[in-house]
């Protein structure tokens, strides 16, 4: 057990120290919440507190204990590039809660936004509340449910969201039913007219062409922000394309407004419109080798 933990900590340090500007070195497992899916581990070190799922899994969410407003993981900053394409969202849906860092950051930046988060694992929601200051409220709700079930229910209720953030993937595993043409079509039904989907995913030479192609089978515009950490932020919508000057202006003002979180302009620079992908296949509910493609990395 001890050996396993040492290996885990080594893995954690490795994966997080590989991020150039961050120096998180986790030394201690603070808490393990039993889960019917994957045990949720809270680990601390060097002033940081992070979540990992089980032993061999990379870090999911991190906060700086002394300053919880700081965004630690790069991808959580990258997500905010989505606001360049939908600058005044009133309703946001977040799929995959993690530590609840993203809803908290949005709420303190724009307190009037109504945020609904959906998370499949009750253990994750407990950890977010007890270790990451996430407090559900009328303005920021949490539902424990599979995203496909939640989305279907919201479509039936004729609800609409201006932004849907998909943060349900990790480097080792993709819930395949959340990466299909049918699912994206449901998201499109749930979006308001100016709505955008913002997704956190990963750079992978085998999966990326199919992933892009699947988005492009449903949405006319697909933008990408590649991050040094290997994350890839995708922004999909049916809006007319943004011109470069407007995009740059908006990204600049977002990074300024979120300066307190440690956001720099460089974190959001590099958003580009993707050309139509002709490689790979459109992933569907009937045929979806996403996890196999990831293995072939």
């Amino acid at each position, binding site marked *: 057990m001890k050996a396993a933990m040492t290996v885990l900590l080594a893995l954690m340090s490795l994966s997080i120290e590989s991020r150039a500007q961050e120096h998180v070195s986790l030394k201690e497992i603070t808490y393990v919440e039993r889960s*019917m*899916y994957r045990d949720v581990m809270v680990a601390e070190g060097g002033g940081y507190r992070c979540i990992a799922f089980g032993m061999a899994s990379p870090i999911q969410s991190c906060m700086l204990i002394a300053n919880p407003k700081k965004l630690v993981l790069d991808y959580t900053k990258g997500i905010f590039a989505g606001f360049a394409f939908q600058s005044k969202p009133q309703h946001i849906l977040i799929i995959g809660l993690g530590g609840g860092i993203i809803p908290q950051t949005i709420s303190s930046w724009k307190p009037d936004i109504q945020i609904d988060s959906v998370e*499949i694992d009750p253990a994750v929601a407990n950890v977010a509340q007890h270790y990451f200051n996430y407090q559900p409220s009328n303005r920021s709700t949490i539902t424990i*449910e*599979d*995203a*496909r*079930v939640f989305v*279907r*229910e919201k479509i*039936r209720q004729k609800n609409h969201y201006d932004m849907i953030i998909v943060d349900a993937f990790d480097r080792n595993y993709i*819930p*395949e*039913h959340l990466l*299909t043409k*049918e*699912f994206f079509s449901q998201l499109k039904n749930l979006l308001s007219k100016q709505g955008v989907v913002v997704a956190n995913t990963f750079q992978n030479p085998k999966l990326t062409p199919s992933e892009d192609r699947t988005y492009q089978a449903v949405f006319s515009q697909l933008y990408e922000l590649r991050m040094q950490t290997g994350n890839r932020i995708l922004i999909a919508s049916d809006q007319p394309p943004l011109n470069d000057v407007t995009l740059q202006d908006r990204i600049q003002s977002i990074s300024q407004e979120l300066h307190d979180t440690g956001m720099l302009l460089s974190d959001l620079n590099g958003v580009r419109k993707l050309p139509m992908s002709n490689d790979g296949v459109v992933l569907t*509910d*009937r*045929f*979806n*080798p996403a*996890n*196999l493609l990831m293995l072939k990395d």
Partner: protein
Amino acid sequence: MTHKKTITPIFIFGAACVSGFYMMSIELLGGRILSPFFGSSIFVWGAVISVFMTFLSLGYLLGGRLSTRKPSIKTFALLLAIEGFFALPLLVTPHILDPLANTFPDPRWGALVASTILFGLTTLMAGTISPYAMRLLVSDVERSGNAAGIMFFVSTLGSAAGTILTSFYLVLMFDIYDIVFGLISLLLATSAILTAVSPSSSELCEDEA
């Protein structure tokens, strides 16, 4: 007669193996067929597995009962064919699951009802195969334990093969409908082969012994 005596049991064991393969392959596809509608939470897997276990157990009873009435290889082949036909609704799942998912917002009940409709009958028939095959194979009490042992061996090994092939390879290489179609074809082909090799009259293995 000596020729048939050794050949026919092999075909019966083979058919039990194919049925075991088919059943676990369908069970694994079950989770994947339901997840777009009811999610991939632990409840959905719970619903799929409990439906399979329930209908399999009922199938054992039914198969045992059927074996007391003029058992023949032709009837055995027919059971396999019916097992395959009952999987045909799996080729039109969205038309069945879409209204169900809207009727049952709670994914637990939705998945339970959907599993029953989609997998209940075919699993029931899968359950009839082993007891019926036993009746065809057993010629005397002293050898019955051995025949039962081989029967459980081949059908469970078939199930293991169906599980690993489907989860490791098939779902990643083929469309779900193509896999279901392939599995139904496999059952029907096995049924046809059994019919072809079955003794012309109603004689059984035991009659030949």
